Protein backbone atom coordinates (compact mmCIF):
# COMPACT_ATOMS: atom_id res chain seq x y z
CA UNK A 1 0.00 0.00 0.00
CA UNK A 2 1.28 3.46 -0.77
CA UNK A 3 -1.51 5.56 0.62
CA UNK A 4 -0.27 8.74 2.29
CA UNK A 5 -0.58 8.75 6.04
CA UNK A 6 -3.14 11.09 7.49
CA UNK A 7 -3.73 12.16 11.07
CA UNK A 8 -7.00 12.31 12.94
CA UNK A 9 -8.30 8.85 12.25
CA UNK A 10 -10.40 7.10 14.85
CA UNK A 11 -9.35 3.84 16.35
CA UNK A 12 -11.09 1.66 18.91
CA UNK A 13 -8.93 -0.88 20.67
CA UNK A 14 -11.17 -1.78 23.60
CA UNK A 15 -12.01 -5.49 23.64
CA UNK A 16 -15.76 -5.96 23.32
CA UNK A 17 -16.17 -9.71 23.17
CA UNK A 18 -17.46 -9.83 26.73
CA UNK A 19 -20.38 -7.49 26.01
CA UNK A 20 -22.74 -10.03 24.40
CA UNK A 21 -21.67 -12.77 26.80
CA UNK A 22 -22.63 -10.64 29.81
CA UNK A 23 -25.82 -9.58 28.07
CA UNK A 24 -26.83 -13.17 27.37
CA UNK A 25 -25.97 -14.15 30.94
CA UNK A 26 -28.18 -11.37 32.26
CA UNK A 27 -31.02 -12.40 30.02
CA UNK A 28 -30.69 -16.03 31.03
CA UNK A 29 -30.95 -14.99 34.67
CA UNK A 30 -34.04 -12.94 33.92
CA UNK A 31 -35.55 -15.83 31.97
CA UNK A 32 -34.97 -18.18 34.87
CA UNK A 33 -36.80 -15.77 37.11
CA UNK A 34 -39.67 -15.36 34.67
CA UNK A 35 -41.16 -18.64 35.90
CA UNK A 36 -44.14 -20.56 34.67
CA UNK A 37 -46.31 -17.54 33.92
CA UNK A 38 -44.21 -16.68 30.90
CA UNK A 39 -44.66 -18.03 27.44
CA UNK A 40 -41.79 -19.85 25.79
CA UNK A 41 -41.65 -20.27 22.05
CA UNK A 42 -39.03 -21.92 19.92
CA UNK A 43 -38.42 -20.58 16.47
CA UNK A 44 -36.58 -21.77 13.42
CA UNK A 45 -36.15 -20.32 10.00
CA UNK A 46 -34.30 -21.26 6.86
CA UNK A 47 -33.96 -19.49 3.60
CA UNK A 48 -31.87 -17.98 0.90
CA UNK A 49 -31.08 -14.51 -0.28
CA UNK A 50 -29.30 -12.73 -3.07
CA UNK A 51 -27.48 -9.41 -2.72
CA UNK A 52 -26.35 -7.58 -5.84
CA UNK A 53 -23.78 -5.38 -4.14
CA UNK A 54 -22.16 -7.13 -1.22
CA UNK A 55 -19.16 -4.83 -1.45
CA UNK A 56 -21.32 -1.71 -1.15
CA UNK A 57 -19.34 -0.37 -4.09
CA UNK A 58 -20.04 2.53 -6.42
CA UNK A 59 -18.16 1.39 -9.50
CA UNK A 60 -19.60 -1.57 -11.38
CA UNK A 61 -16.15 -3.16 -11.52
CA UNK A 62 -16.01 -3.26 -7.74
CA UNK A 63 -19.44 -4.72 -7.18
CA UNK A 64 -19.68 -8.32 -6.05
CA UNK A 65 -22.96 -10.17 -6.02
CA UNK A 66 -23.77 -13.54 -4.52
CA UNK A 67 -26.46 -15.69 -3.07
CA UNK A 68 -26.43 -17.27 0.33
CA UNK A 69 -28.29 -19.79 2.43
CA UNK A 70 -29.27 -18.86 5.94
CA UNK A 71 -30.71 -20.58 8.98
CA UNK A 72 -31.70 -19.39 12.42
CA UNK A 73 -32.86 -20.93 15.66
CA UNK A 74 -34.30 -18.90 18.49
CA UNK A 75 -35.88 -19.19 21.90
CA UNK A 76 -38.40 -16.49 22.69
CA UNK A 77 -39.71 -15.78 26.15
CA UNK A 78 -42.79 -13.57 26.34
CA UNK A 79 -43.76 -12.34 29.76
CA UNK A 80 -46.74 -10.06 30.46
CA UNK A 81 -45.99 -7.99 33.57
CA UNK A 82 -49.42 -6.33 33.65
CA UNK A 83 -52.28 -6.14 31.20
CA UNK A 84 -50.49 -3.27 29.48
CA UNK A 85 -46.81 -4.07 29.94
CA UNK A 86 -44.86 -7.00 28.63
CA UNK A 87 -41.31 -8.10 28.04
CA UNK A 88 -39.84 -10.31 25.35
CA UNK A 89 -36.47 -11.94 25.63
CA UNK A 90 -35.01 -13.59 22.57
CA UNK A 91 -31.94 -15.75 22.31
CA UNK A 92 -30.87 -16.69 18.84
CA UNK A 93 -28.17 -18.28 16.77
CA UNK A 94 -27.93 -18.05 13.03
CA UNK A 95 -25.56 -18.77 10.21
CA UNK A 96 -25.04 -17.82 6.59
CA UNK A 97 -23.18 -19.65 3.84
CA UNK A 98 -22.37 -17.78 0.65
CA UNK A 99 -22.20 -19.41 -2.73
CA UNK A 100 -19.05 -17.67 -3.93
CA UNK A 101 -17.32 -15.76 -1.16
CA UNK A 102 -16.66 -18.27 1.58
CA UNK A 103 -15.08 -15.63 3.82
CA UNK A 104 -18.49 -14.06 4.27
CA UNK A 105 -19.82 -17.21 5.90
CA UNK A 106 -20.72 -16.46 9.46
CA UNK A 107 -22.19 -17.75 12.69
CA UNK A 108 -23.96 -15.32 14.99
CA UNK A 109 -25.13 -15.70 18.56
CA UNK A 110 -27.14 -12.96 20.15
CA UNK A 111 -29.92 -11.84 22.39
CA UNK A 112 -32.54 -9.12 22.44
CA UNK A 113 -34.60 -7.78 25.32
CA UNK A 114 -37.70 -5.73 24.58
CA UNK A 115 -40.25 -3.94 26.73
CA UNK A 116 -43.65 -2.99 25.35
CA UNK A 117 -46.35 -0.78 26.81
CA UNK A 118 -49.87 -0.55 25.49
CA UNK A 119 -51.86 2.62 26.11
CA UNK A 120 -55.20 1.12 26.98
CA UNK A 121 -57.13 -2.05 26.38
CA UNK A 122 -57.94 -3.56 23.03
CA UNK A 123 -56.27 -4.50 19.80
CA UNK A 124 -56.41 -0.93 18.54
CA UNK A 125 -54.66 0.63 21.53
CA UNK A 126 -51.42 2.44 20.60
CA UNK A 127 -48.17 1.11 21.97
CA UNK A 128 -44.51 1.90 22.45
CA UNK A 129 -41.58 -0.44 22.77
CA UNK A 130 -37.92 -0.17 23.59
CA UNK A 131 -35.37 -2.87 23.02
CA UNK A 132 -31.70 -3.58 23.38
CA UNK A 133 -29.76 -6.25 21.58
CA UNK A 134 -26.27 -7.65 21.42
CA UNK A 135 -24.64 -10.27 19.27
CA UNK A 136 -21.30 -11.76 18.49
CA UNK A 137 -20.77 -12.18 14.75
CA UNK A 138 -18.08 -14.69 13.92
CA UNK A 139 -17.10 -14.55 10.26
CA UNK A 140 -14.88 -17.02 8.49
CA UNK A 141 -12.89 -13.97 7.44
CA UNK A 142 -11.74 -12.35 10.67
CA UNK A 143 -11.92 -8.82 9.31
CA UNK A 144 -15.69 -8.86 9.71
CA UNK A 145 -15.81 -10.66 13.03
CA UNK A 146 -17.29 -8.22 15.48
CA UNK A 147 -19.61 -7.52 18.35
CA UNK A 148 -22.84 -5.64 17.75
CA UNK A 149 -25.12 -3.79 20.10
CA UNK A 150 -28.20 -1.77 19.33
CA UNK A 151 -31.03 0.03 21.08
CA UNK A 152 -34.39 0.82 19.54
CA UNK A 153 -37.57 2.68 20.34
CA UNK A 154 -40.76 2.22 18.36
CA UNK A 155 -44.32 3.48 18.61
CA UNK A 156 -47.26 2.17 16.68
CA UNK A 157 -50.87 1.25 16.60
CA UNK A 158 -53.30 -0.99 14.83
CA UNK A 159 -56.03 0.75 12.89
CA UNK A 160 -58.08 -2.34 12.08
CA UNK A 161 -57.70 -6.10 12.00
CA UNK A 162 -55.82 -5.83 8.72
CA UNK A 163 -53.85 -2.58 9.02
CA UNK A 164 -51.11 -1.49 11.41
CA UNK A 165 -48.26 1.01 11.33
CA UNK A 166 -45.33 2.14 13.43
CA UNK A 167 -42.41 4.55 13.52
CA UNK A 168 -39.11 4.06 15.25
CA UNK A 169 -35.58 5.22 15.91
CA UNK A 170 -32.46 3.26 16.67
CA UNK A 171 -28.80 3.46 17.46
CA UNK A 172 -26.43 0.70 16.50
CA UNK A 173 -22.80 0.05 17.19
CA UNK A 174 -20.50 -2.56 15.75
CA UNK A 175 -17.18 -3.15 17.46
CA UNK A 176 -14.34 -4.40 15.31
CA UNK A 177 -11.28 -5.67 17.13
CA UNK A 178 -9.63 -7.37 14.19
CA UNK A 179 -8.95 -4.85 11.45
CA UNK A 180 -5.24 -4.42 10.84
CA UNK A 181 -3.99 -1.06 9.58
CA UNK A 182 -2.51 -1.03 6.13
CA UNK A 183 -1.68 2.67 6.14
CA UNK A 184 0.37 4.11 8.98
CA UNK A 185 -1.71 6.37 11.16
CA UNK A 186 -5.03 5.17 9.77
CA UNK A 187 -7.11 2.64 11.61
CA UNK A 188 -7.68 -0.74 10.05
CA UNK A 189 -10.94 -1.31 11.91
CA UNK A 190 -13.23 -0.70 8.98
CA UNK A 191 -16.09 -2.57 10.60
CA UNK A 192 -15.98 -0.46 13.73
CA UNK A 193 -19.22 1.30 12.86
CA UNK A 194 -21.75 3.48 14.60
CA UNK A 195 -24.99 4.86 13.25
CA UNK A 196 -28.46 6.00 14.09
CA UNK A 197 -31.60 5.97 12.07
CA UNK A 198 -35.34 6.31 11.90
CA UNK A 199 -38.00 4.36 10.06
CA UNK A 200 -41.67 4.20 9.32
CA UNK A 201 -43.50 1.04 8.43
CA UNK A 202 -47.00 -0.17 7.70
CA UNK A 203 -48.48 -3.64 7.38
CA UNK A 204 -51.63 -4.69 5.60
CA UNK A 205 -53.35 -8.07 5.29
CA UNK A 206 -55.36 -8.33 2.08
CA UNK A 207 -56.33 -11.84 3.17
CA UNK A 208 -56.02 -13.73 6.44
CA UNK A 209 -53.01 -15.59 5.03
CA UNK A 210 -51.14 -12.79 3.29
CA UNK A 211 -49.42 -9.95 5.10
CA UNK A 212 -47.59 -7.18 3.28
CA UNK A 213 -45.17 -4.99 5.17
CA UNK A 214 -43.63 -1.83 3.72
CA UNK A 215 -40.83 0.00 5.46
CA UNK A 216 -38.83 3.11 4.68
CA UNK A 217 -35.93 4.46 6.69
CA UNK A 218 -32.94 6.70 6.82
CA UNK A 219 -29.68 6.09 8.64
CA UNK A 220 -26.83 8.42 9.34
CA UNK A 221 -23.47 7.12 10.45
CA UNK A 222 -20.52 5.00 9.48
CA UNK A 223 -20.73 2.83 6.41
CA UNK A 224 -18.30 0.38 4.93
CA UNK A 225 -17.55 0.35 1.22
CA UNK A 226 -15.16 -1.90 -0.62
CA UNK A 227 -13.39 -0.98 -3.82
CA UNK A 228 -10.10 -1.04 -5.62
CA UNK A 229 -7.68 1.66 -4.61
CA UNK A 230 -9.55 4.90 -4.81
CA UNK A 231 -8.00 8.18 -3.79
CA UNK A 232 -11.29 10.04 -3.39
CA UNK A 233 -12.66 7.44 -1.06
CA UNK A 234 -9.38 7.29 0.76
CA UNK A 235 -9.51 11.01 1.47
CA UNK A 236 -12.96 10.65 2.98
CA UNK A 237 -12.37 7.46 4.91
CA UNK A 238 -11.59 7.04 8.60
CA UNK A 239 -10.37 3.44 8.38
CA UNK A 240 -8.86 1.29 5.67
CA UNK A 241 -8.11 -2.42 5.53
CA UNK A 242 -7.21 -4.99 2.93
CA UNK A 243 -10.29 -7.08 2.26
CA UNK A 244 -9.18 -10.55 1.13
CA UNK A 245 -12.67 -12.02 0.92
CA UNK A 246 -13.12 -11.03 -2.68
CA UNK A 247 -9.98 -12.57 -4.15
CA UNK A 248 -8.32 -10.97 -7.15
CA UNK A 249 -8.09 -8.16 -7.94
CA UNK A 250 -7.24 -6.96 -4.46
CA UNK A 251 -9.94 -4.83 -2.91
CA UNK A 252 -9.80 -2.53 0.08
CA UNK A 253 -12.47 -1.84 2.63
CA UNK A 254 -13.08 1.77 3.66
CA UNK A 255 -15.05 3.23 6.53
CA UNK A 256 -16.81 6.49 5.74
CA UNK A 257 -19.59 8.66 7.06
CA UNK A 258 -22.73 8.44 5.03
CA UNK A 259 -26.46 8.62 4.85
CA UNK A 260 -28.45 5.63 3.73
CA UNK A 261 -32.05 5.63 2.59
CA UNK A 262 -33.69 2.26 2.75
CA UNK A 263 -36.88 0.70 1.55
CA UNK A 264 -38.19 -2.79 2.15
CA UNK A 265 -41.23 -4.67 0.99
CA UNK A 266 -42.09 -8.01 2.54
CA UNK A 267 -44.84 -10.40 1.59
CA UNK A 268 -45.53 -13.04 4.20
CA UNK A 269 -47.85 -15.94 3.48
CA UNK A 270 -49.08 -17.78 6.57
CA UNK A 271 -49.07 -21.54 6.15
CA UNK A 272 -50.52 -21.96 9.64
CA UNK A 273 -50.62 -20.06 12.91
CA UNK A 274 -47.05 -21.21 13.48
CA UNK A 275 -45.39 -20.94 10.08
CA UNK A 276 -45.04 -18.71 7.08
CA UNK A 277 -43.18 -18.26 3.83
CA UNK A 278 -41.77 -14.78 3.39
CA UNK A 279 -40.46 -13.02 0.32
CA UNK A 280 -38.73 -9.71 0.85
CA UNK A 281 -37.06 -7.08 -1.26
CA UNK A 282 -34.67 -4.58 0.32
CA UNK A 283 -33.33 -1.47 -1.34
CA UNK A 284 -30.62 0.81 -0.09
CA UNK A 285 -29.11 4.01 -1.41
CA UNK A 286 -26.09 5.50 0.34
CA UNK A 287 -24.47 8.86 -0.10
CA UNK A 288 -21.09 9.35 1.54
CA UNK A 289 -18.36 11.95 1.43
CA UNK A 290 -16.44 12.76 -1.72
CA UNK A 291 -19.44 11.98 -3.88
CA UNK A 292 -19.44 8.27 -3.12
CA UNK A 293 -22.83 6.77 -3.84
CA UNK A 294 -23.91 3.17 -4.00
CA UNK A 295 -27.10 1.22 -4.21
CA UNK A 296 -27.96 -2.25 -3.01
CA UNK A 297 -30.75 -4.59 -3.92
CA UNK A 298 -31.43 -7.81 -2.08
CA UNK A 299 -34.16 -10.40 -2.21
CA UNK A 300 -34.93 -12.91 0.52
CA UNK A 301 -36.93 -16.11 0.61
CA UNK A 302 -37.47 -17.47 4.12
CA UNK A 303 -39.48 -20.22 5.74
CA UNK A 304 -40.30 -19.48 9.35
CA UNK A 305 -41.65 -21.79 12.00
CA UNK A 306 -42.52 -21.00 15.60
CA UNK A 307 -43.79 -23.35 18.24
Amino acid at each position, binding site marked *: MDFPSRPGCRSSAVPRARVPALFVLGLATALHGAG*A*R*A*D*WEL*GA*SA*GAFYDDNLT*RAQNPADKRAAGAASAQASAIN*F*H*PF*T*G*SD*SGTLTLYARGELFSRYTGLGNAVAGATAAYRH*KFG*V*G*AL*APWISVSAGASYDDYRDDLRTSTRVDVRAEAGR*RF*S*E*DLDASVGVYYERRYDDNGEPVVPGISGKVFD*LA*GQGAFVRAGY*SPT*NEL*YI*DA*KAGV*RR*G*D*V*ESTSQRNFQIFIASSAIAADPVWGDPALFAYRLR*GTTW*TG*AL*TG*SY*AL*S*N*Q*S*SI*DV*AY*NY*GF*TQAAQGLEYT*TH*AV*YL*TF*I*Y*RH
Partner: protein
Amino acid sequence: MKTLMCRVAAVAVLASPIAQAQNAEIAATVTDERGKPIADAVVIAVPADGSLRLPAKAPDEVVDQVDKEFLPKVQAVLVGTPITFPNRDSVRHQVYSFSPAKHFELPLYSGTPQAVVFDKPGVVVLGCNIHDWMVGYVYVSESPYFGKTDADGKTVLANLPPGAYVARVWHPQLAGTEEATRKTVDASRGRRTAVAWALSLKPEVKIRRAPAAGQRGGY
Protein backbone atom coordinates in the same frame (compact mmCIF):
# COMPACT_ATOMS: atom_id res chain seq x y z
CA MET B 1 -68.69 -29.45 25.27
CA LYS B 2 -70.24 -30.25 21.90
CA THR B 3 -73.32 -31.49 23.70
CA LEU B 4 -73.49 -28.29 25.60
CA MET B 5 -73.18 -26.25 22.45
CA CYS B 6 -75.93 -28.05 20.63
CA ARG B 7 -78.43 -28.43 23.35
CA VAL B 8 -81.36 -26.20 24.08
CA ALA B 9 -80.92 -24.19 27.21
CA ALA B 10 -84.46 -24.67 28.42
CA VAL B 11 -83.37 -27.04 31.13
CA ALA B 12 -85.94 -26.20 33.76
CA VAL B 13 -88.97 -25.34 31.75
CA LEU B 14 -90.49 -28.76 31.42
CA ALA B 15 -90.48 -31.43 34.06
CA SER B 16 -92.31 -34.63 33.32
CA PRO B 17 -91.28 -37.20 30.69
CA ILE B 18 -94.86 -37.25 29.41
CA ALA B 19 -94.81 -33.54 28.87
CA GLN B 20 -91.44 -33.80 27.12
CA ALA B 21 -92.74 -36.45 24.78
CA GLN B 22 -95.46 -34.13 23.71
CA ASN B 23 -93.13 -31.21 23.13
CA ALA B 24 -91.99 -30.01 19.76
CA GLU B 25 -88.59 -29.77 18.11
CA ILE B 26 -87.10 -27.49 15.51
CA ALA B 27 -84.38 -29.06 13.38
CA ALA B 28 -82.35 -26.19 11.96
CA THR B 29 -79.91 -26.40 9.08
CA VAL B 30 -77.68 -23.45 8.22
CA THR B 31 -75.67 -23.29 5.02
CA ASP B 32 -74.04 -20.62 2.95
CA GLU B 33 -75.43 -19.57 -0.40
CA ARG B 34 -73.63 -22.47 -2.10
CA GLY B 35 -75.09 -25.00 0.27
CA LYS B 36 -71.93 -25.48 2.33
CA PRO B 37 -72.72 -26.17 6.01
CA ILE B 38 -72.00 -23.32 8.41
CA ALA B 39 -70.77 -24.22 11.86
CA ASP B 40 -71.03 -21.96 14.91
CA ALA B 41 -74.29 -20.35 13.78
CA VAL B 42 -76.66 -19.65 16.66
CA VAL B 43 -80.32 -20.43 16.02
CA ILE B 44 -82.81 -18.78 18.33
CA ALA B 45 -86.54 -19.46 18.57
CA VAL B 46 -88.86 -17.06 20.37
CA PRO B 47 -92.54 -17.89 21.00
CA ALA B 48 -94.59 -15.82 18.59
CA ASP B 49 -96.88 -14.74 21.40
CA GLY B 50 -93.88 -13.48 23.38
CA SER B 51 -94.58 -15.82 26.30
CA LEU B 52 -91.07 -16.66 27.46
CA ARG B 53 -90.70 -18.90 30.50
CA LEU B 54 -87.17 -18.51 31.78
CA PRO B 55 -85.56 -20.87 34.28
CA ALA B 56 -84.96 -19.50 37.76
CA LYS B 57 -81.21 -19.80 37.33
CA ALA B 58 -79.28 -20.48 34.20
CA PRO B 59 -76.49 -23.05 34.56
CA ASP B 60 -72.88 -21.84 34.45
CA GLU B 61 -71.02 -22.02 31.17
CA VAL B 62 -67.34 -21.98 30.30
CA VAL B 63 -65.15 -20.31 27.68
CA ASP B 64 -61.63 -21.71 27.90
CA GLN B 65 -58.41 -20.21 26.68
CA VAL B 66 -56.35 -22.96 25.08
CA ASP B 67 -53.23 -22.42 22.99
CA LYS B 68 -53.97 -18.71 23.03
CA GLU B 69 -57.41 -19.04 21.46
CA PHE B 70 -60.92 -18.93 22.90
CA LEU B 71 -62.58 -22.32 23.07
CA PRO B 72 -65.33 -22.50 21.98
CA LYS B 73 -64.96 -19.59 19.63
CA VAL B 74 -68.73 -19.05 19.77
CA GLN B 75 -70.61 -19.70 22.99
CA ALA B 76 -74.41 -19.34 23.10
CA VAL B 77 -75.99 -18.77 26.52
CA LEU B 78 -79.28 -17.73 28.02
CA VAL B 79 -79.48 -14.23 29.43
CA GLY B 80 -78.37 -14.23 33.05
CA THR B 81 -75.83 -17.03 32.54
CA PRO B 82 -72.56 -16.82 34.49
CA ILE B 83 -69.55 -17.70 32.34
CA THR B 84 -66.12 -18.55 33.67
CA PHE B 85 -63.00 -18.03 31.58
CA PRO B 86 -60.41 -20.61 32.69
CA ASN B 87 -56.91 -19.98 31.44
CA ARG B 88 -55.41 -23.34 30.35
CA ASP B 89 -52.24 -21.71 28.97
CA SER B 90 -48.95 -21.14 30.76
CA VAL B 91 -49.02 -17.47 29.82
CA ARG B 92 -51.45 -15.11 31.50
CA HIS B 93 -54.43 -13.62 29.68
CA GLN B 94 -56.49 -10.47 30.10
CA VAL B 95 -59.96 -11.06 28.72
CA TYR B 96 -62.17 -8.07 27.94
CA SER B 97 -65.17 -6.92 25.98
CA PHE B 98 -66.31 -3.49 24.92
CA SER B 99 -69.62 -4.77 23.53
CA PRO B 100 -72.78 -2.91 24.59
CA ALA B 101 -74.32 -6.19 25.75
CA LYS B 102 -71.50 -6.70 28.27
CA HIS B 103 -68.62 -4.42 29.07
CA PHE B 104 -66.08 -6.16 31.30
CA GLU B 105 -62.40 -6.74 31.88
CA LEU B 106 -60.67 -9.57 33.73
CA PRO B 107 -57.28 -8.24 34.85
CA LEU B 108 -54.23 -10.30 33.92
CA TYR B 109 -54.71 -13.76 35.37
CA SER B 110 -53.80 -17.41 35.48
CA GLY B 111 -56.23 -20.14 36.52
CA THR B 112 -59.94 -19.43 36.68
CA PRO B 113 -61.20 -15.99 37.67
CA GLN B 114 -64.64 -15.25 39.05
CA ALA B 115 -67.52 -15.84 36.65
CA VAL B 116 -68.96 -12.99 34.61
CA VAL B 117 -72.77 -12.82 34.43
CA PHE B 118 -74.09 -12.03 30.97
CA ASP B 119 -77.25 -10.21 31.94
CA LYS B 120 -78.22 -8.48 28.71
CA PRO B 121 -79.20 -10.08 25.40
CA GLY B 122 -76.95 -9.45 22.43
CA VAL B 123 -73.59 -10.31 20.94
CA VAL B 124 -70.50 -9.94 23.12
CA VAL B 125 -67.16 -9.89 21.34
CA LEU B 126 -64.29 -11.18 23.48
CA GLY B 127 -60.67 -10.15 23.19
CA CYS B 128 -57.39 -10.63 25.04
CA ASN B 129 -55.28 -7.57 25.68
CA ILE B 130 -52.13 -9.69 25.69
CA HIS B 131 -52.79 -11.60 22.47
CA ASP B 132 -54.53 -9.32 20.01
CA TRP B 133 -55.39 -12.12 17.59
CA MET B 134 -57.64 -13.84 20.16
CA VAL B 135 -61.30 -13.26 19.33
CA GLY B 136 -64.33 -15.03 20.72
CA TYR B 137 -68.08 -14.47 20.78
CA VAL B 138 -70.77 -14.94 23.38
CA TYR B 139 -74.29 -14.85 22.01
CA VAL B 140 -76.65 -13.98 24.86
CA SER B 141 -80.13 -15.18 23.99
CA GLU B 142 -83.27 -13.70 25.46
CA SER B 143 -85.03 -17.01 24.78
CA PRO B 144 -84.27 -20.37 26.40
CA TYR B 145 -84.77 -22.03 22.99
CA PHE B 146 -81.53 -21.82 21.11
CA GLY B 147 -78.73 -23.95 19.76
CA LYS B 148 -75.43 -23.75 17.93
CA THR B 149 -74.81 -25.53 14.65
CA ASP B 150 -72.23 -28.28 14.42
CA ALA B 151 -69.80 -28.93 11.57
CA ASP B 152 -72.72 -30.18 9.46
CA GLY B 153 -74.53 -26.90 9.96
CA LYS B 154 -77.23 -28.58 12.06
CA THR B 155 -78.74 -28.10 15.48
CA VAL B 156 -81.96 -29.26 17.11
CA LEU B 157 -83.97 -27.07 19.44
CA ALA B 158 -85.76 -29.63 21.61
CA ASN B 159 -88.36 -29.51 24.37
CA LEU B 160 -90.23 -26.60 22.87
CA PRO B 161 -93.79 -26.08 24.04
CA PRO B 162 -95.92 -26.59 20.92
CA GLY B 163 -96.87 -23.42 19.13
CA ALA B 164 -95.72 -20.78 16.73
CA TYR B 165 -92.18 -19.44 16.96
CA VAL B 166 -90.18 -16.72 15.34
CA ALA B 167 -86.80 -18.26 14.58
CA ARG B 168 -83.68 -16.39 13.55
CA VAL B 169 -80.00 -17.08 13.12
CA TRP B 170 -76.76 -15.26 13.95
CA HIS B 171 -73.18 -15.90 12.92
CA PRO B 172 -70.00 -13.83 13.47
CA GLN B 173 -69.66 -13.32 9.72
CA LEU B 174 -73.33 -12.74 8.95
CA ALA B 175 -73.47 -10.27 6.07
CA GLY B 176 -76.90 -8.87 6.81
CA THR B 177 -78.79 -8.27 10.01
CA GLU B 178 -79.96 -10.96 12.36
CA GLU B 179 -83.50 -9.63 12.05
CA ALA B 180 -83.44 -10.26 8.31
CA THR B 181 -83.14 -14.00 8.97
CA ARG B 182 -86.46 -14.20 10.84
CA LYS B 183 -88.80 -17.04 9.96
CA THR B 184 -92.11 -18.06 11.46
CA VAL B 185 -92.14 -21.73 12.42
CA ASP B 186 -95.15 -23.76 13.47
CA ALA B 187 -93.76 -26.28 15.94
CA SER B 188 -96.41 -28.95 16.34
CA ARG B 189 -96.81 -31.25 19.33
CA GLY B 190 -94.63 -34.36 19.19
CA ARG B 191 -93.09 -33.47 15.83
CA ARG B 192 -89.78 -32.25 14.52
CA THR B 193 -90.09 -29.27 12.19
CA ALA B 194 -87.27 -28.67 9.76
CA VAL B 195 -86.11 -25.12 9.06
CA ALA B 196 -83.23 -24.11 6.80
CA TRP B 197 -81.31 -20.93 6.23
CA ALA B 198 -78.91 -20.06 3.42
CA LEU B 199 -76.81 -17.23 4.76
CA SER B 200 -74.57 -14.75 3.05
CA LEU B 201 -71.33 -14.45 5.00
CA LYS B 202 -68.71 -11.73 5.03
CA PRO B 203 -65.06 -12.78 4.72
CA GLU B 204 -63.48 -13.39 8.10
CA VAL B 205 -60.88 -10.74 8.86
CA LYS B 206 -58.46 -11.79 11.58
CA ILE B 207 -55.44 -10.24 13.16
CA ARG B 208 -52.48 -12.24 11.96
CA ARG B 209 -50.92 -14.67 14.39
CA ALA B 210 -48.35 -16.36 12.16
CA PRO B 211 -44.71 -15.24 12.47
CA ALA B 212 -43.05 -13.02 9.88
CA ALA B 213 -39.38 -12.49 9.17
CA GLY B 214 -37.60 -9.46 10.51
CA GLN B 215 -36.14 -7.28 7.86
CA ARG B 216 -32.42 -7.12 7.45
CA GLY B 217 -29.87 -5.12 5.55
CA GLY B 218 -26.25 -4.11 5.80
CA TYR B 219 -24.62 -0.78 5.37
